[in-house]
């Protein structure tokens, strides 16, 4: 280990077994490790204890409405594409208590949720997922009313990104400019090569973690291998989305007959919105105790595919699947750009993989374009 710390922006090289040391340092700093692990016949993001919990030697196969685990013929640590659920469920939990309200005589007392945010080290964040986090940052933190619980979780998170050299059949991050190479916002970014990890230092915190791990500056051939692996990954995206005429293509085709065609297949099941790493819609519910004297206000994930989502007195604004799919797609690819300055899609392909009927937004956009 050189007796100096790697600079921010520098590339270091660490032996594969020394990833365990990185994990250990993070744990010593008080982080809970969240990373890919085998569970529920999939590679899921969950709490992990160490390197042994990683899905070493496992990959996945993804296609529209299809997901399979697949044993690899090597011992890659990060040899899969993406987990079904993104990091959203840790940074923006599906159920979050906002406050507790207790009736006190004729008035009531409000107790804000002061639970300290967990300190997560997110292990294995892909480029598309890092972009998704940046997009959710804009949604939750850039307005007049930043969301405190999200901000706390986000600020306390350590991001160990892993460059993607295993794009899947439903991936199109290259089309969205979101990958496969991770963009800014990570603390450390790994690229897995056969014998080593090449580590890019993204922050002061990342620099401190790496400095406690045996490392050496990355060599030219190692960086060349990283570049080649990522260039190849970029060529192996299973899907492609032409974004050149968005958002106007969708804005100008709100009455396109293809919406009816999609509606005949779409089940309004909400899967796509649940697995989407950027979808942020929520409901706020009361969960009272039996006496009614005490109630928790909960923020829960919601979906524009549910009927009640658009309910106003007298009916629902979007009563049909046609209107709900149209809302989702135009929001994701068009109005999101006007609202937050970037597309709401990162090209992770989850909505394609996890759609039970295999609806593929890249194909739907292409169909709308084909018949303008």
């Amino acid at each position, binding site marked *: 280990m050189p*007796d100096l*710390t790697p600079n921010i922006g520098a590339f270091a090289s660490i032996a594969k077994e020394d990833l365990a040391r990185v994990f250990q*340092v993070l744990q010593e*700093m*008080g*982080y809970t490790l969240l990373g890919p692990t085998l569970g529920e016949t999939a590679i899921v993001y969950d709490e992990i204890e160490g390197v042994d919990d990683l899905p070493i030697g496992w990959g996945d196969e993804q296609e529209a409405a299809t997901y399979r685990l697949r044993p690899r013929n090597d011992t890659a640590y990060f040899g899969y594409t993406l987990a079904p659920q993104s990091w959203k469920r840790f940074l923006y939990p599906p159920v979050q208590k906002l*406050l507790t*309200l207790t009736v006190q005589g*004729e*008035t*009531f007392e*409000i107790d*804000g*949720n002061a*639970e300290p945010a967990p300190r997560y080290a997110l292990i294995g964040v892909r480029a598309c997922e890092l972009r998704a986090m940046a997009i959710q940052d804009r949604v*939750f933190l850039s*307005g*007049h*009313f*930043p*969301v*405190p619980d999200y*901000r*706390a979780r986000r*600020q*306390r998170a*350590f991001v160990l990104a892993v460059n993607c050299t295993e794009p899947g059949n439903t991936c199109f991050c290259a089309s969205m400019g979101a990958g496969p190479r991770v963009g800014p916002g990570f603390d450390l970014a790994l690229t897995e090569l056969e014998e080593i990890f090449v580590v890019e230092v993204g922050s002061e*915190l990342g*620099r*401190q973690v790496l*400095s*406690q791990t045996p490392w050496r500056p990355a060599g030219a051939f190692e960086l060349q291998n990283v570049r080649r692996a990522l260039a190849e990954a970029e060529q192996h995206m299973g899907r492609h989305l032409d974004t050149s005429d968005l958002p106007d293509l969708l*804005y100008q085709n709100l*009455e396109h007959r293809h919406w009816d065609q999609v509606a005949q297949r779409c089940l309004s099941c909400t899967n796509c919105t649940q697995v989407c790493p950027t979808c942020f819609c*929520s*409901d*706020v*519910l*009361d969960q009272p105790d039996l006496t*009614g004297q005490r*109630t928790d*206000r909960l923020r829960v994930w*919601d979906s*524009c595919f549910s009927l009640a*989502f*658009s309910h*106003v*007195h*007298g009916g629902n*604004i*979007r009563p*049909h699947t*046609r*209107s709900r799919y149209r*809302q989702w797609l*135009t929001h994701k690819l*068009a*109005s999101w750009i*006007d*609202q937050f300055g970037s597309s709401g899609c990162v090209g992770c392909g989850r909505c394609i993989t996890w759609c039970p009927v295999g609806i593929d937004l890249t194909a739907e956009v292409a169909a709308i374009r084909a018949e303008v």
Partner: protein
Amino acid sequence: MMKPTTAPATPPARNGPMRLYPARVVEIKEEAYAIMTYSLVFDDEGMQRRYSFQPGQFNMVYLPAIGEVPISVSSAPAPQQPLGHTIRFAGNVTRAIGRLRVGDVVGLRGPYGTAWPLERLRGQDLCIVTGGIGLAPLRPVLYHVMQHRADFGRIFLLYGARTPSDMLYTDEFDSWERQEINLRLTVDRADESWRGNVGVVPMLFYQLRLDPKKTSVLACGPEIMIRFGIYEALARRIPKEQIYVSMERNMKCGVGFCGHCQLGPAFVCREGPVFSYAAIEPFFGVEDF
């Protein structure tokens, strides 16, 4: 070797944008069948002093263990006065509000959303187009123009209700007319007492001679009424930039991140509820959008 530091500390726990403030019902006034105006005052005196709203903005009104609804402020935009909320008992929350009595406490937060552009309307004739409870978000506008009557030209209030007894604020009509607000009323179904118009609100445009150069239209009510009101205004060559509408959508947060109230690129709670028609024209009236 540099010593590791810890990750950034958590910012102090804050209640965030969904923070509610207890407010007390100080007056309840029955306006029509199943429509009441609740005047609310924050329990916290400082909060009551600091609170100010502009005509057209709304509050979130919350009942513990039941839920929260967006309600426009319907009282005069005068500082430190009780805040009027005219509420029709239509859903679970509003029906529960209907069981409140004077002295009861609700949760209140706001004000949210955009306001009617009163500064920009100075010197203009106003054509206010309302139906049903859509008059409530425009009543603060009436109070404002009555207080600054010389700042405005002719003022027409087109107002429709299902039946004569569904009309809101009827006891104030005389005072409005005394301030030269020209009321044109209509009902869907008349009763024996009714001597006025029967029919939909947009038809009232045919009684007026509007000057398109100096008339602004302010519309709030059922979306179908707004839509045909806009058509009548456009037919009279009133530019779409001079047409303002207040829209209704499902709202859970009121602050632009629950996603429910989206109308194209707009969050109705943030870019609305009051819109320039020119801004939402591409999305307004698109079926089921």
